Each structure stands twice: as structure tokens, then as C-alpha cells.
């Protein structure tokens, strides 16, 4: 591009380029103008299609008739107006490249009819009307969403309710922005930016979804051109929303210090797991578009339940990576401890007779921690890099398994004619546990609930002094959050009390509970939701997994030991200089990591009931990948347990999603590799924004 041209001064205009072209080329609205022209033309095409009767909307039993109904006329008028405004604005931007920004309007320097200002106001207005029309069409049943066998019935499903509620909220937000702008209130700028940005994102998603389902509207034996109206109907809403919003957003973010997308990027940069968050959202949106089954509880439950072992091991490996070390032997430790757990129950290990499930579990956990201790002590004594040390122990621990169960034998709990490991709990023990839980809840509520409602009261009291652009949003979210926490705590407390009362009702009768069910059994019903249908396989192990994630994230961020781990991995010399025992922290983290492998082993055996010689092979790479996606640095000193959870979920959803999308499962590894690469690139890019 020839930047030597100064179009407005008119001094150096090369002969090859006409003044008009130069004007366009150097216009800061160049891209906006192009988008606006596209939007304007598309609107007019739609108007034509409706007028010609090819595009039918609303109540229309017979597509062949020529009259136009109310909704069609409304949409036509709206589309025509919006199209004309876009084209006129494009012309305005083209003629006056120095069109003032919204800031000039807010301080009263220009009027509402200035090209960009009018575009913004019109956009918000169209958005309000559009959202309301959309609601109306869903409620009257003319737009059907979600799983719907029969379009003619009148009930509204959950997806539709969500769409209705969110579009009403969206209409209100747009209205707020619109009114702010009318009053020349400075807050309107930020509101309009966010409205445009989010509308654009939603529009893009809808457009993407339409693209995926495009092949469904091709008439048999024909091409897309045979069904122009159908194509338009499918593609236009998303495309128009996306392009219009982007044009407005580009105008709005001109000459602002911190645009909406920058503030999103900045807050993402604060999180170690930006890549995993973005990846997870993208994956969920993409798969739920491709396959409607993906959003069903069945798929979510399966994605969670099949990743319990990976998830628990990933916690340990992340902690270890934060302290600057690395454990390749996790898969073998997982295998050994699973083996010891099952053998201790069935055949007996270390020369002991078969044990009860609890003793066997304790034995396998102690063994796992011991294997981790061996890793750590070798590392500290020899100062060999952990990659080599644990590569060696990976093979050695695996050898133990192969020696014990040679020739591909598989140990099955069911083969031993043993009873299920039932533990008889006295109801009073359970009552005591529940009472303790209730006490903790009361204590928590006692501390948190007044604080939450107090902060809401303070927000309301200081509402008029609050200079933030989004003070209304803060008040609403504070209120919703306080309400949610209060309801959740009250619900849990009531649950505890009800359970205690019903236990008292049983008298002194012992309650048999299967040990396997405690560790990783199927959850039959959920509080508030009720019994789960038979095809939803949600496991108790998921609860333990999440509890462990929360506990370790808490240790990492809120307790001194977490700080020591970060320091040891980030700069061992500095940690030592501050009196932290680097060796002790590292050995301890190796042991925690191995112990968590043992816990994962318990969860695995409790669910599957069998152990084969190659159990856990390849686990190490998968969990390290999850930790890395979650933001952990291979060089140590940085990472998050929560990120590792997201990393594991990312893989779990990928696997489930590919199956549901009907993609051959063989490409799973390829996709996994791609995601690792993308997530790490994103993490690095985002971190660069911060420094």
C-alpha cells in the first residue's frame, strides 16, 4: 500500500490512482465500508426474496400464496431500513474519512444524525426489535429449536426457553445501551461495544452452525443454487448479525483506550489456562452445533466418568511440574497400585492372606506413595534429570506388573467368587458424618452469607458514586451470586437434616454400603434433579476428582506449601536462599503425585473390576499433555490445577464429540496433537500480552 499519498491534503496524488480510490484506500473506515456495503446488499436481497414470496416467515400454511403476513412485513421494513442505513453510512464514511468517533457525540460536539452515531443507534434499535420478534416467533411456535419431532405442537422445550430468556435479556441490554446513548451518557460507549461484540460472536456461531448444516437443504439431485431462498433463510440471520455487529464494533472501538476485546484478552492473560478455556468453549460450541446429542446429560456424564483416572493423575503431575520436575512413571505407578489393590483383595500380597477392601486400598496407597518416594530420592541423590529417572522407573515398575501377571493374564475380581466388598455402617456413624458436614455448612454460611448480602447492600448504597460503566451489571450479578450461594447452602443443609432424620428413623439397623460404590459407583440420583435415567452413567469418582481439584488448587494458591512449590520450580536458588528445603518439597511432590496415581487406581478397579498387564500404558503422555494445555510450564514455576482439569475435560469432550459427530475415532490422536499445539501457542501468545 502506498502510504505516501496524503488524500485530504490533495498535494501528492499519483496519476495512476484516481482521487476517489485514494480516498477509499487510506480511509480508516475502509473495512467498515466494505462490510456495510455487503450488509446493505444482503438486506435488500432478503427484502426482495420476501416480497417475491420465496422466503416465508411466521404463520404460513401455504407457501404458494402471494399475500404477506404481519411478521413478513415487519421483517421487510426492518431489513430495508437497516440495509439503507448501512449503505448510506458507508457512503458517509467514504465521503468523510475523518468522521468523528462516538466520543465526539458523547461530549455534544456532533448530532445524532452523524453517520456512525446514527448507525450505532439504528443497530441497537434493530437489535431490540429483532430479539423481541425472535421471542415472539418461538413462543408462537413458528421458530422451532432443539430436539423437536413435531413442529406443530405447542409446548416449548428447554432449549427454546433458554433462547427466549436470553433474547429478552439481550433486548434489555440493547435497550439500556440505546437509552444511554440517547442521553449522551458516557457509559453508553462501553455498553454498545459489548453489545456489538457479543452479538457478533453469537452471529458468527449461528452462521457457523448454518454452514455445518448446509448440506441438509440441498434438494435431492440438485445443488444449492436450486434452493436460493432456503440457503438465504439458513445463512442470512447469522451472517447479517455477525457482519452488522462487526461494522458497528469497528466504528465504536475507534479511538478508545481499552476496547471490549482487549479487556477480554487482558483478563484471559491473567489466567494460566487461557488456551484451555478458549479451546474448551470452542470445542463445546462446535460439537454442540455438529451434533445435538453433545449437549445432552448423557454425553457430559460419559465425558466426565471416563476421565476420572486421567483427571486425578493430572492433578499430581501438574503439582509436580509446578515444582519443576516431571514424572513419566505415573502410568506404571497407576498400574502397580491397581494391581496391588486387586491382588490384596483376591489372592493376597506380600505373603499376607486376602484383605478387606479398605485394608487393600490403604496398602496400595502406601505402596504408591513409596514408589513416588523412590523417584524423588533417586532424583535428589543422583541429580539426574527427572525425565531420565522416571523413564527408568517407568520401565522398572512396569516390569513388576509383567512379572506378577505374565502372558497377558487379566486379574478379574469377579473370577474369585468373592462377595462384594460390603461395609456395614452403623447409622450413627453416618449421622455423625452428616452432622459434621452440616456443622461445616453452617459455619461457612455464618461467615459467607452476611458477607455476600453485605457487599450487595454496599453496592446499592454506593450506586450513585460508582463510576464504573457497568454498575448495573455488577449489582445484578452480585445479587444473583448471593442468591445462588444462599439457595445452594440452604439446599445442602436441608438435605443433611432430612438424611439425618431418615437415618434416625431406621433405628440401630446397620447400613451395608459397597466400598466400590463409594469410590467409583454409579450415581443413581442427584439432589434437586432426581433419579438419573439408566443411560446416564455418572460416577461417584467424579465427585472425588472435583474435590481433589479444589483441595489442591486451594493448597497451591492459598497455603504456604503451594508457594514453596512455585518457588522451587520457578527459581530453586531463591527458594533455598529463603530457607525452603528444595529437596524436601520435590520429594514430597513426587509422593503426592504417586499417591494420586494410587487413588486413580482405586477408582479404576472399583469401576472396572479387573487389571491387565498393560494398564496405564500411555497415561503419562496424556496427563502431561492435559497439564501443559492447562498452562503448566515444562520448565516449572507456573501452572494451575484448575487448568489441568480443563485440559483433561478438553480431551474427554473431544473423544466423546468425535464419536457423536460420527467422525472415525482414528483421527482422535491427530486432533489431540493439534489441540496441544494450538493451546500451547495460545497460552504463550496470551502470556506475551501480559508482559
Amino acid at each position: 500500500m502506498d502510504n505516501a499519498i496524503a488524500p485530504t491534503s490533495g498535494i501528492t496524488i499519483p496519476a495512476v490512482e484516481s482521487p476517489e480510490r485514494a480516498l477509499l484506500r487510506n480511509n480508516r473506515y475502509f473495512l467498515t465500508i466494505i462490510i456495510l456495503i455487503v450488509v446493505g446488499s444482503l438486506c435488500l436481497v432478503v427484502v426482495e426474496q420476501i416480497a417475491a414470496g420465496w422466503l416465508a416467515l411466521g404463520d404460513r400454511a401455504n407457501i404458494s400464496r402471494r399475500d404477506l403476513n404481519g411478521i413478513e412485513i415487519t421483517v421487510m421494513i426492518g431489513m430495508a431500513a437497516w440495509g439503507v442505513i448501512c449503505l448510506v453510512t458507508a457512503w458517509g464514511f467514504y465521503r468523510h474519512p475523518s468522521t468523528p468517533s462516538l466520543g465526539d457525540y458523547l461530549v455534544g460536539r456532533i448530532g445524532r444524525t452523524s453517520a456512525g452515531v446514527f448507525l450505532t443507534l439504528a443497530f441497537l434499535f434493530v437489535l431490540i426489535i429483532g430479539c423481541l420478534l425472535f421471542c415472539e416467533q418461538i413462543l408462537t411456535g413458528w421458530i422451532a429449536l432443539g430436539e423437536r419431532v413435531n413442529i406443530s405442537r405447542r409446548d416449548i422445550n428447554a432449549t427454546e426457553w433458554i433462547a427466549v430468556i436470553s433474547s429478552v435479556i439481550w433486548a434489555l441490554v440493547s435497550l439500556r445501551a440505546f437509552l444511554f446513548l440517547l442521553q449522551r451518557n458516557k457509559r453508553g460507549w462501553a455498553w454498545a461495544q459489548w453489545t456489538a461484540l457479543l452479538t457478533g460472536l453469537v452471529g458468527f456461531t449461528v452462521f457457523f452452525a448454518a454452514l455445518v448444516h448446509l448440506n441438509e437443504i440441498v434438494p435431492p439431485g440438485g445443488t444449492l443454487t436450486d434452493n436460493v431462498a432456503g440457503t438465504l433463510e439458513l445463512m442470512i440471520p447469522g451472517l447479517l448479525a455477525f457482519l452488522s455487529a462487526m461494522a458497528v464494533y469497528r466504528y465504536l472501538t475507534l479511538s478508545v483506550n481499552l476496547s471490549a476485546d482487549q479487556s477480554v484478552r487482558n483478563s484471559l492473560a491473567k489466567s494460566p489456562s487461557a488456551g484451555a478455556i478458549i479451546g474448551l468453549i470452542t470445542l463445546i460450541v462446535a460439537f454442540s452445533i455438529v451434533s445435538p446429542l453433545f449437549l445432552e446429560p448423557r454425553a457430559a456424564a460419559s465425558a466426565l466418568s471416563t476421565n476420572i483416572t486421567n483427571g486425578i493423575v493430572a492433578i499430581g503431575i501438574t503439582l509436580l511440574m509446578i515444582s519443576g520436575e516431571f514424572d513419566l512413571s505415573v502410568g506404571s505407578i497407576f498400574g502397580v497400585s491397581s494391581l496391588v489393590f486387586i491382588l490384596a483383595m483376591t489372592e493376597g500380597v506380600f505373603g499376607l492372606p486376602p484383605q478387606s477392601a479398605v485394608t487393600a486400598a490403604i496398602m496400595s496407597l502406601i505402596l504408591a506413595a513409596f514408589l513416588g518416594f523412590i523417584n524423588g530420592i533417586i532424583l535428589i541423590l543422583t541429580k539426574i534429570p527427572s525425565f531420565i529417572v522416571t523413564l527408568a522407573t517407568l520401565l522398572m515398575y512396569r516390569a513388576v506388573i509383567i512379572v506378577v501377571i505374565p502372558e497377558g493374564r487379566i486379574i478379574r475380581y469377579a473370577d474369585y467368587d468373592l462377595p462384594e466388598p460390603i461395609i456395614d455402617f452403623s447409622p450413627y456413624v453416618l449421622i455423625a458424618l452428616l452432622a459434621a458436614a452440616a456443622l461445616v455448612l453452617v459455619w461457612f454460611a455464618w461467615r459467607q452469607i452476611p458477607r455476600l448480602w453485605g457487599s450487595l447492600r454496599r453496592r446499592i448504597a454506593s450506586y450513585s458514586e460508582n463510576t464504573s460503566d457497568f454498575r448495573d451489571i455488577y449489582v445484578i450479578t452480585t445479587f444473583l451470586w448471593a442468591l445462588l450461594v444462599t439457595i445452594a447452602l440452604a439446599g445442602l443443609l436441608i438435605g443433611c437434616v432430612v438424611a439425618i432424620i431418615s437415618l434416625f428413623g431406621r433405628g440401630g439397623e446397620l447400613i451395608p454400603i459397597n466400598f466400590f460404590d463409594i469410590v467409583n459407583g454409579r450415581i443413581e440420583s442427584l439432589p434437586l434433579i432426581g433419579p438419573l435415567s439408566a443411560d446416564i452413567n455418572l460416577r461417584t469418582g467424579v465427585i472425588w476428582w472435583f474435590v481433589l481439584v479444589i483441595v489442591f488448587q486451594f493448597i497451591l494458591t492459598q497455603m504456604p506449601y503451594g508457594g514453596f512449590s512455585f518457588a522451587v520450580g520457578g527459581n530453586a536458588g531463591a527458594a533455598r536462599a529463603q530457607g525452603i528445603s528444595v529437596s524436601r518439597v520435590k520429594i514430597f511432590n513426587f509422593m503426592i503425585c504417586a499417591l494420586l496415581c494410587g487413588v486413580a487406581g482405586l477408582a479404576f478397579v472399583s469401576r472396572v473390576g479387573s487389571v491387565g498387564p498393560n494398564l496405564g500404558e500411555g497415561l503419562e503422555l496424556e496427563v502431561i499433555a492435559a497439564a501443559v494445555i492447562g498452562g503448566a510450564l515444562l520448565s516449572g514455576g507456573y501452572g494451575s490445577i484448575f487448568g489441568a482439569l480443563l485440559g483433561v475435560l478438553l480431551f474427554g469432550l473431544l473423544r466423546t464429540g468425535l464419536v457423536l459427530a460420527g467422525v472415525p475415532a482414528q483421527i482422535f490422536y491427530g486432533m489431540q496433537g493439534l489441540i496441544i499445539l494450538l493451546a500451547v501457542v495460545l497460552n504463550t501468545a496470551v502470556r506475551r500480552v501480559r508482559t
Partner: protein
Amino acid sequence: MSDAPNETTVPLVEMRGIVKQFGSVEALRGVDFQVNRNEIVGLLGDNGAGKSTLIKILTGVYTPTRGEIYFDGQPVTIDSPHAARMIGIETVYQDLALVPLMSISRNFWLGQEPTHGWGPFRVLDQKVMAEKARDALLDIGIRIRNAEESVGSMSGGERQSIAIGRAVYFGKKLLILDEPTSALSVKQTGEVLNYTRRAKERGLSVIFITHNIAHVHEVADRFTIIRGGRKIGDFHKHEVSELEVAQMVMSGSVPDRLRIGPEDA
């Protein structure tokens, strides 16, 4: 604040006849070294002169082959860095001072975090950590925007300064700065020297190790020059010029007019 060292009291640190042998190599051949209270000593010497060996003995990294160390007038055995910390010696190493990926406040408190709770269930008191770190740093003149910011985004001079501020806050008696300015710009060097002076005003003694006299002449009260494992001499700032010190560091010979020199103590 008086700039002259207080000669009447016992020196804070006194090292007598320190000999250190590594196998057949004699790194230190009987060095006497002392630091008075509230004094900044510039420990000078070329690379390999033995100054880091001397300091590593004082900070417990090495144990001396022969010789005694007195701290606060008491004979002490410093056999580990931990022991050195316990008696109040804080060392600020150039790149070992802070953990770059952790926040200022976490770095400031590393190893001695304020907590609530009991036993193994101690939880960091993040609010107190951030507030006190900010106040303590402000106290010696370091203004930080946000204690939650990571140290990695700060300049080398700021990092040294935070380490100095930390030593002052935790009531250390002796601050050892190991080549603190060798990788810094002129402006940042100035800042670090400034905070060193502040540390002295707060009652600390400082050993400033460097091979570059220009960095320390401004703030030091006294210079100790080491060469070839021996001490060339101790000189008060008013007795020597910058040029003379530089020559002694390089040549190892004391100018005639200083020959009889003030052997302190």
C-alpha cells in the same frame, strides 16, 4: 545519621585469620575482615581474588579451614545458609533473589508467610501480605503499583530493591549484596545504591561486593580490598581516592602514603 562508623562498640562481624583450602589450592591465606555496626563496607577485588570465598564462608556455604568468626561479639559457627539466616545475615544474590513468575507479595514473604489457621491447615493471609509488603517497600522508598504483579515484569534494579526491602523489613542485621549492580543500567544502579543507603539508615550493616569501584565509592564508608587470597588493606572513604582504590584492586600494591594505614581495630 552519622556517616562515621561507631568505633566504640564491638564490631557486628569480625572474621579473624580465615584460611580456606580447596585441596592443595589455598583460596584464602589468613584474612581478617570486619564490619562495624551501621556501616557499608565495599568488599573489592578482581575476579578470583577470594572475595566470594570469604563471603560464602560468612553465609555458611563453605566452612573455613582455619579461623574464627564473631557475630555481635560472640564466636559463632556458621555451617549452613540456614544458620546464617538465623543469626540475621541476609544475602541478596544477583539472579537468585526472587522467583520471577511469582507475585511481589508472595516473593516478599516467601518462607515466612503470615497465615491464619492452625497446624497443617494454615491459610495465607493474602490481604495482610499485600498490604504489609507494599508498606514495607514504601518505607525504604520503593513504590510499587500492585503487590499482586509478577516479579518477572520488573527491571533488574527493581528486583534487587525488593530483595533489599525484604531484608530490611525482616529485621536482618547484615545485608550482603553480591555484585548487585554488575548487570544494571546507570539509572538502576543509582536506585540500588539509594536503597542500600536507606537500609543503612534503618540500622543495617551492608557488605557490598563488587569488582567495580565506581559502583560503590558513592555509598561505602570503608573499603576492604582483597587480592590473591590476602587482604591488601582497609581504607576509610575519606582516606583514599577512587583512582587509588582502583589501582590497588588491579595491582595489589598499596600507595606509599597509605602504607602505615589504618589497620582498623
